[in-house]
């Protein structure tokens, strides 16, 4: 009897540890979407572990990833930021952003088939962006599908990379995406071509967090004891 109880207690502890991991990943994803400019209530971002357990645990106490699918709409400010400057040919350019779909995959491994199913869901429902959060790394072949599903944008994160929000680390300076208008002003002010700016890879962890696209410019704000706040700029490639 004692053995059985011990076994049961161990299973329950494992389930709870897993649930806590997912709660942390969930919070990071929500903070990330809020930082990018999607419409999310503060109470959604700051959900307590208890509330998370109530909503997303299965009867065994483990996280039920299928319940964790969610989507957010961009705020007006975000829409503006993602709208190109009007031209004669296109006096009213549409914003290059839209609803984002987030899915926590239940599959232990992600191959072509799983990725194809996700991509299909994203494009079928006309989501502008889809984020797939996976339990393990994705196969190289499956990653090749991502550029093929344009115009939808697909991003992937591993759960373990979301346990901590890297932008909250004190050594990581604030990164802020410039709007098309801000970018033009910056280049004009310094009489630069964008290619003359220092660069940031779109695969850089912070660039990935912000969902940076090639050609965008971020402002990086550092604090220094001697110089106070100072800004630098990076061109995403």
């Amino acid at each position, binding site marked *: 009897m004692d053995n059985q109880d011990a076994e049961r207690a161990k299973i329950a502890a494992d389930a709870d540890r897993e649930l806590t991991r997912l709660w942390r990943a969930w919070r990071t994803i929500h903070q990330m979407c809020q930082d990018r400019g999607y419409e999310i209530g503060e109470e959604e971002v700051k959900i307590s572990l208890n509330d998370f357990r109530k909503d997303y645990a299965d009867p065994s106490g483990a996280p039920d990833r299928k319940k964790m699918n969610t989507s957010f709409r961009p705020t007006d400010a975000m829409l503006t930021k993602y709208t190109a400057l009007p031209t004669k040919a296109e006096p009213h350019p549409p914003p290059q952003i839209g609803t984002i779909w987030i899915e926590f995959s239940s599959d232990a*491994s*992600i*191959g*072509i*088939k*799983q990725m*194809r199913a996700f991509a299909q869901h994203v494009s079928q429902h006309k989501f502008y962006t889809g984020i797939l959060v996976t339990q393990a790394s994705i*196969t*190289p*072949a*499956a990653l*090749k*599908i991502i550029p*093929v599903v344009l115009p939808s944008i697909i991003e992937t994160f591993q759960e373990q990379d979301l346990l901590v929000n890297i932008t909250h680390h004190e050594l990581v300076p604030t990164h802020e995406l410039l709007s098309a208008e801000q970018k033009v002003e910056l280049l004009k002010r310094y009489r630069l071509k964008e290619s003359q700016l220092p660069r940031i890879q779109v695969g850089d962890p912070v660039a990935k967090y912000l969902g940076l696209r090639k050609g965008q410019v971020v402002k990086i704000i550092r604090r220094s004891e001697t110089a106070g706040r100072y800004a630098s700029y990076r061109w995403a490639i």
Partner: protein
Amino acid sequence: MPHSILKNALSFLSNTSTSSARSSEDRNKKTALYHAQLLQQRKDVEALILAYTEALLEVPSSPAADPARPRLQDITLVKDSLKPFQPSDYDSLIEERNINKRCGYVLCPRPNRQEDTKARYRILHGKGRGSDSLKFVDRHTLEQWCSDDCGKRALYVKLQLNEEPAWTRVGSPVGDILLLEDEQNIQKRLEYDFTLIGELRSLDLGLEEDEVVARMKALAIERGDEEASSRSFGLAEIDVHEKRDIGGKVSAPDPSTTERNSKGWSDSIEGYTPRCTRKKTRGPESGNREDEDEDMMPTI
């Protein structure tokens, strides 16, 4: 830059630069265009391989298919699809099939093995006794297939794949990929033929040698001429030189299965040039028939 791309680029440049009037700017444009085309070719091939990989996840078409006797339709699809594959693409296909809980051998519908251990290695007992016979096998390797047989079949195909990326293979002809079963069919067919010769010989000891030769010729004609006969053995055209690549890694036909033919010509089955072998290794009971061999062998 892979060597062959460089080579193509160089030959391209030398071709264009000979037309003397061309300015260097013109040449630079052409070089850029050439590289753009090469890049596009590469993209196209990679997209094709991805599409083929995806299609091959659904092979074989029937869940009851037998990997030892695949349907002709599946065989054709597999052989055609694998042509542009490099060994690494093939590994990727196996990985994808395993994720979908299928045997990594593309013509097998069964689930792959699931070892009930998380240990990295399994210890298997081979033939013989003592610690020499123990084999350490990576668990991941075991779990790629439903059985050792499928592991052998899959490896047999892999060894024939071209290491060179398909977009730089210009000019090198694509050989047909053989399945392990193709190879074994050839072996069986050879065995069968030798058995026939044996029976013929034991039945017709009284026949004149000429007559035996005539019968063997008839047998040959029945199968078509020498070249055609090799085509009819297996499921695909046979490229004997393929064997070079196979080296020692794929198990050769098991000698024990050929030895049961005790008439003394079993040794010849081993290879494609049985003539010399036979002369050397024939048993004494047929030692006086060497001349007859000389005539017969070319018909096989």
